[in-house]
């Protein structure tokens, strides 16, 4: 299979869905031209020339209205793909994501759908500092009405984004910017759909489950390699969708291995890992034979210096260390 980068996979999904359904349009800052290849990251490359500026719309710097108008257009028959350039700016669009999009169907008592996707680039590792590097998924996972997706591979990015655009619910779609051009992998051409709400076992093993998503999946896979060298058979599970969470696949894996480490890039405290840990501590308690470990960032903003950022980020070594603590 041909290999493409993460951002190319995102771009391919957008191309295909715009070609398939003319209700789909792109709405955000610098999406038309950007740095010459569509946006600052190239995610919207070629869309404006192919589909015209009517369907690939550059907006003013107005994150709240980008989100809010997208809710309105979705209510009125369109399927907007709204782009929030950096997921840190989710804070500016927060009201329309949590109070408008998420609650509309309920307010309409089921008589409306809100098929909008909010795409946003998240994560650290590229030296973008405290206001352009956050992993804010936990800000919105307590909000009923939203789906929340965070792919970890190019193939998943394509398949999940296509599904998100076809979904009749509001979907917040996090794309990790570290992966954009750094991760190149095989991605199926054409129709390739991955259902929202299905986790993926990226590697099977019997001794320990590592649950990781976003850029942390790569670190979990590396950690699994390292641990394998010491004879520990690791299962690596990627939830892919955080809301709805694939509880069954998670519980199945933990019931098999009895040990679990949950990894995410956001600070550990208050992060989405807590939800996964709580689920396991309630539903798979009797299968557990060691404490549930979480590996995340310390409770600080993302620092600007690369030296500090490296210290800040969770990585394979930190995962291995956590594993050793519970494998004893």
């Amino acid at each position, binding site marked *: 299979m041909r290999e493409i980068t993460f951002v190319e996979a995102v771009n391919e999904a957008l191309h295909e869905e715009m070609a398939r359904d003319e209700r789909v349009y792109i709405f955000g800052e610098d999406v038309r031209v950007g740095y010459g290849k569509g946006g600052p990251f190239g995610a919207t490359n070629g869309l404006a020339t192919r589909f015209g500026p009517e369907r690939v719309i550059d907006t003013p710097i107005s994150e*709240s209205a980008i989100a809010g108008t*997208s809710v309105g257009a979705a209510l009125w028959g*369109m399927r907007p793909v709204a782009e929030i350039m950096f997921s840190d700016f989710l804070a500016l669009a927060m009201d329309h994501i949590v*109070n408008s999009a998420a609650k509309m169907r309920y307010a309409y008592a089921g008589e409306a759908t809100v098929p909008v996707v909010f795409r946003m680039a998240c994560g650290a590792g590229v030296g973008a500092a405290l206001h352009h590097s956050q992993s804010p998924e936990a800000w919105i996972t307590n909000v009923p009405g939203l789906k929340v997706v965070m792919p970890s591979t190019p193939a998943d990015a394509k398949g999940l984004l296509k599904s998100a655009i076809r979904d009749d619910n509001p979907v917040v779609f996090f794309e990790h910017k570290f992966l954009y051009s750094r991760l190149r992998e095989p991605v199926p051409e054409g129709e390739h759909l991955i259902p929202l709400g299905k986790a993926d076992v990226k590697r099977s093993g019997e001794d320990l489950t590592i649950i990781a998503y976003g850029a942390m999946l790569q670190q979990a896979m590396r950690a699994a390699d390292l641990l394998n060298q010491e004879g520990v058979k690791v299962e690596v599970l990627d939830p892919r969708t955080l809301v709805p969470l694939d509880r069954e696949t998670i519980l199945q894996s933990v019931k098999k291995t009895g040990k679990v480490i949950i990894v995410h890039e956001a600070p550990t405290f208050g992060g989405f890992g807590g939800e996964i840990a709580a689920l396991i501590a309630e539903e798979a308690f009797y299968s557990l034979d060691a404490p549930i470990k979480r590996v995340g960032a310390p409770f600080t903003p993302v620092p600007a210096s690369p030296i500090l950022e490296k210290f800040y980020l969770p990585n394979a070594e930190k995962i291995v260390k956590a594993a050793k603590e519970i494998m004893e």
Partner: protein
Amino acid sequence: MQISDKDLLQMYRWMVLDRVFEEKTFDLLKLGKLVGFHHPNVGQEAVDVGTCYGLRKDDTIMPTHRGKGKYLMKGVDIKIMMAGMFGRRNGSGKGRGPASHSGDNSIGLLAGTGLIGSGIPISTGAALAMKLQKKDSVALHFFGDGASNRGDFHEALNMAGVMKLPIVYVCDNNCYAMSVPQSCAMAIENIAIRAEGYGFPGIMVDGNDVLAVYEATQKAIVRARKGEGPTLIECKTYRWMGHSINDPGVYRSAEEVAAWKEKCPVRRFENYLREKKILNDAKVQDVYKKVNEEIEEAVRFAESSPLPLPEDTLLDVYADLKN
């Protein structure tokens, strides 16, 4: 502007309905019969009727939290609205959403949210959809003087201006946002002038003159349908009652309220129609009688409607997933 006698009478009927509905539901509220928040619109009827009269089904409106007149004019069945206010299972919102923030796409009623001003971009998005769909429908969006200080007002109007969207922004300027007078919330007198900053016209009208409101709205609608972009219409009016049932209104003088009551939009329109010989005592009584009957029937309907089932709580969160 030429308006037929029939239309004028219809408009009058709506004015009366709006007034009586708000008074009646406020009484019901005091009796503890209604669920949720309600913000009476008494005194502001001319804005409702002047803007909403003659809209098409494929035009959208998004009313504010204040009053139910716009909903009814856009086509919400008065029984369903009342049942919603009573928190019944068959009413607007069906007990899940509050009656005043429920929508209905089939009649072009967009739901707002309980957040003042946040509806502005949502309506603007509907206007964007209309434009992308190459339709000549129009979105009418309502908001108060207070809402015009929200960032969403700015972001949405600016977007609508630059994208020339088919939308009419109607500011129900009733001089107060809860207890805060306009002068304490902005340094300007005329909110309409803000439209200049977005590159489209801003117009002020006497919000107690239903025909002035109607004329301004119709002009703006024509403009929007032709693809010439948005208009902001500021309707100067006043709310007679407190912000809500909890508000004794200590922040304004009895004289101020009395002076505005003198300018009653319903009576003013009635007098005008009497002068034009379109109305007389008998006709007025007839209108009130029918309106009262209609409302009474809606109350009966609501009171005999079923309450929601507790498990309804779990419905309609997602289009596909079940709780």
